[in-house]
C-alpha cells in the first residue's frame, strides 16, 4: 500500500525481502546500507537474536530521489527466514508494495527455496495480495559458492511468471542494486497505472 503524502510531497513504498533462512536477505540490506549516501538513508534496524539470526525484521529506509516533484522513499524490510517464525513473516507483509524473493543457489537449499516461495504465496493471499500480480523480483543469491546449482536449473524451479531474475553474491554487492532497482521500477509502474 503506497502512502502518498501531498502535504510533504512524498511517496512511500514498502518492499519486503523474502526467502528461506540464511539465504542472504539481511546481507542485501546491509550492502544497500553500506553503499548508500548517508543523506539518502536512515538507520538500519535489525531485530535479531544473539546469534544474529533475524527474529522479527530488518528495516532500512532509503530515498531514491524525486519523481514529478515527489520524493520517493522506499522502506526495505526483511522477514525472518526460519520456518517457525511464520506468524512474524505474515505481519511484515502487511501493506507490501513489492517483493524480492532471495533464493539460495545451493542444491541442498532447493527444497527450502520452494517451501519458502509457497509460504510467501500463502501469506500474500492472507493479506489480499496475489503473487501473480504484485511487483516481484527473483534473486538467485550465493552464485559464488561451489555448491551452487546452474542458473538454468534454479530458473526452471523457481521462476514462475517470467519475473526479472538476477544472479547475486550479496556480500560483494553483485546483483544487489540491480534487484532493488527492478522491484522499485515495477512498484512505480503500478503507481502510474492507478
Amino acid at each position, binding site marked *: 500500500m*503506497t*502512502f502518498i*503524502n501531498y502535504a510533504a510531497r512524498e511517496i512511500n513504498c514498502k518492499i519486503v525481502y523474502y526467502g528461506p533462512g540464511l539465504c542472504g536477505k539481511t546481507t542485501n540490506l546491509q550492502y544497500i546500507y553500506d553503499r548508500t549516501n548517508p543523506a539518502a538513508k536512515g538507520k538500519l534496524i535489525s531485530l535479531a537474536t544473539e546469534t544474529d539470526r533475524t527474529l522479527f525484521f530488518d528495516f532500512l*529506509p532509503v530515498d*531514491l530521489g524525486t*519523481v514529478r516533484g515527489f520524493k520517493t522513499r522506499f522502506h526495505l524490510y526483511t522477514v525472518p527466514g526460519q520456518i517457525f517464525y511464520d506468524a512474524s513473516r505474515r505481519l511484515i507483509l502487511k501493506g507490501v508494495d513489492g517483493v524480492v524473493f532471495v533464493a539460495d543457489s545451493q542444491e541442498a537449499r532447493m527444497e527450502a527455496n520452494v517451501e519458502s516461495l509457497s509460504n510467501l504465496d500463502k501469506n500474500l493471499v492472507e493479506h489480499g495480495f496475489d503473487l501473480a500480480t504484485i511487483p516481484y523480483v527473483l534473486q538467485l543469491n550465493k552464485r559464488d559458492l561451489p555448491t551452487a546449482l546452474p542458473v538454468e536449473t534454479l530458473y526452471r524451479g523457481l521462476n514462475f511468471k517470467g519475473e526479472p531474475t538476477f544472479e547475486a553474491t550479496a556480500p560483494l554487492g553483485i546483483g544487489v542494486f540491480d534487484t532493488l532497482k527492478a522491484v522499485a521500477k515495477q512498484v512505480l509502474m503500478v503507481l502510474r497505472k492507478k
Partner: protein
Amino acid sequence: MSDFILFDEEFRHIKDVISRLKADAQAKVVFIVDKNGQQIAAQGDMESLDTTSLASLTAGNVAATDGLARLIGEREFPVLFHEGERDNVYISVVGQRVILVVIFDERSSLGLVRLRVRKANGELERIFETIQQKVDAEKSRRLAGFDSPFAEITDEDIDNLFKD
C-alpha cells in the same frame, strides 16, 4: 488494498489535533504512524529522535501485539504502554488504521495522557474518515477518466532515479 493518500487540509487538521494533545497532556512528543509503519505527522522535540525508525518499530510492535491478541481470542489490544526510567510511551490505535504515540516524562502522568488521548482519538478518527472518503472519491474520479498526478511518470523519470 487502496493506497493511503494524505492531503494538505487533513494534514493541517491532524497537526492541530496532535499539537493540542501534546500541550494538554504535557507530553514531550506526539506522533501518528499508519499500521504499515509510515509516519504521518509528528509534534514536539524531534531533534534527538529518529522518527522513521520509531514509526517502523511502533507499527511492528502493534502488529505483533495484534497477533498476540488474536491468538488468545481478542480482536486487538487497543492500548500499549511502556514505562521507562525517565520516559514512557503510550500507544493507542485510532480507527483500526493508524497509531497514535505519546512520549512523556515525569512532568505528566499516565492518567492525564490517557484522558487527553481519549478525547483526541475521537477527533482523529473523524479526520481519517474524511481522508478515506476523499480517497474513495478520488478513485471514482479516476475511474471516470481523470488522470492521477502519477499517470505521467515516464520510463525515463524512473531510470533517472537510479543514475549513479
